[in-house]
């Protein structure tokens, strides 16, 4: 009834996680190309001294500190230093995607992402925290052992399965279950999720609502059902995702939910990172397990 086991494709899952995170982060930073100065320069929309005040003088790495350091040692202007830092960041992300010096590249990308995030604290949101988290996992977890340039250079075969890769996938799964469960429980305390008002607000308010969804006022039961469905999906995620009979349909529903969020609320990157996480932690283990099971039953029938 419940299947908590992992198959032997844990490294494939980690490879998908690595490539997905790197590709999405790369697209994200490139999409902000016209706004680097606004976001990250010391005279940007959040000035350096204001950011220091917001951080309450916590000793964390910020993009301002990093660019001052780069500008000092390379003797260039701040704008050039920002571009140099972002060039290194983009290169590190491409290296992660290719699996070239994976852990080192992930460390560089993680440090720069942390600096970017800390340099514009009030401008960052859930997606930035998730990305930071994922880059940290790319340093710690063995993500570069499957279809990677490192394998080609060191003449390694694609790794199959190790305790560390299994632990890594398991921990991604546990964290994902915690995220959905806690998010669902927190939502369940709000009355607006039961009467459709939350869905209505989400899709109709700036800056999220982009598509005219005013028809929901004519058919409020649609908003009510969506709101209650979100609660059910999130609270019961840890249960449904391990329930053998429905898990492969459930993961499709979760991905569809995130796709809908991306389309209606324009939260493409947030939806993207959640989809990648779901596919890596559960999608591949579930579908390869199903495939193996059907191959096995076919063989049994033939015998």
């Amino acid at each position, binding site marked *: 009834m419940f299947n908590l086991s992992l198959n032997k494709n844990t490294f494939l899952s980690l490879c998908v996680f690595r490539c997905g995170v790197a590709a999405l982060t790369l697209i994200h930073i490139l999409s902000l190309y016209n706004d680097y100065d606004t976001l990250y320069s010391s005279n940007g929309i959040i000035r350096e001294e204001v950011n220091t005040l917001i951080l309450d003088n916590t000793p964390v790495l910020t993009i301002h500190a990093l660019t001052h350091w780069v500008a000092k040692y390379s003797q260039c202007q701040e704008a050039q230093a920002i571009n140099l830092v972002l060039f290194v960041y983009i290169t590190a992300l491409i290296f992660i995607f290719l699996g070239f010096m994976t852990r080192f590249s992930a460390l560089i990308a993680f440090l720069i992402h942390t600096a970017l995030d800390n340099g514009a604290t009030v*401008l*960052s949101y859930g997606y930035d925290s998730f990305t930071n988290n994922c880059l940290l996992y790319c340093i710690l977890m063995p993500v570069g052992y499957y279809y990677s340039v490192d394998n080609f250079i060191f003449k390694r075969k694609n790794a199959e399965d190790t305790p*560390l890769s299994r632990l890594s996938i398991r*921990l991604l799964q546990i964290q994902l279950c915690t995220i959905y469960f806690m998010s669902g429980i927190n939502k369940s*305390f709000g009355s*607006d999720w039961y009467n459709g008002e939350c869905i209505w607000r989400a899709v109709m*308010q700036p800056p999220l609502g982009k598509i005219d969804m005013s028809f929901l006022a004519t058919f409020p039961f649609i908003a009510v059902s969506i709101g209650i469905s979100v609660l059910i999906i999130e609270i019961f995620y840890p249960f449904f995702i391990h329930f053998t009979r429905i898990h492969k349909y459930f993961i499709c529903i979760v991905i569809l939910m995130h796709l809908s969020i991306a389309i209606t609320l324009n939260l493409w990157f947030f939806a993207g990172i959640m989809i990648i996480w779901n596919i890596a932690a559960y999608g591949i283990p579930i579908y390869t397990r199903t495939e193996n099971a059907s191959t096995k039953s076919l063989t049994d029938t033939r015998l």
Partner: protein
Amino acid sequence: MGLLYFLIGFIVFLNIFSFANKKVFNKKLQPPFINAIGRWTMLSEYAFYSPNIANSYVMLLTTKDTSGSLNLIPTAVSSFEMQQKIFNLYHFIRQDTTLRDVLAHSVATYYMNVNPEIDNIQLSFFDYHLPKLSRYQQGERPELGDLFYFSEFTKRDVQPIIK
């Protein structure tokens, strides 16, 4: 290898129990290293859009010309991602009353640098009033709600004030 196991376990442990962060670690008691780890590992609550979704906000930037009439300064951004980030700033200004003034000052300085011809700027932050589902059906439409913050800066003001 053992150290790696420990590190992965430790970081994920912190994440799993992250929802307790605000309750367990009172901000005043929170040591700096926890704060730093928090920033690195998402040691924050996973309460996306909960328990309810709040009202949205609108920022209007205006400048007064020599005749005294107000002109709107365009604040459109180039990408939806940037728009999302700027919205977080409005949200911060709405929530954090202690840092409002410095944030408004920073925003005003930025727009004055972008538009050097302007010598005064007014920032007005409004709640966005979206009628409830039933009221919308009855004909009520979204409109600007209460003005919750207003400040005015001139070119002389927008020099860095915090050292």
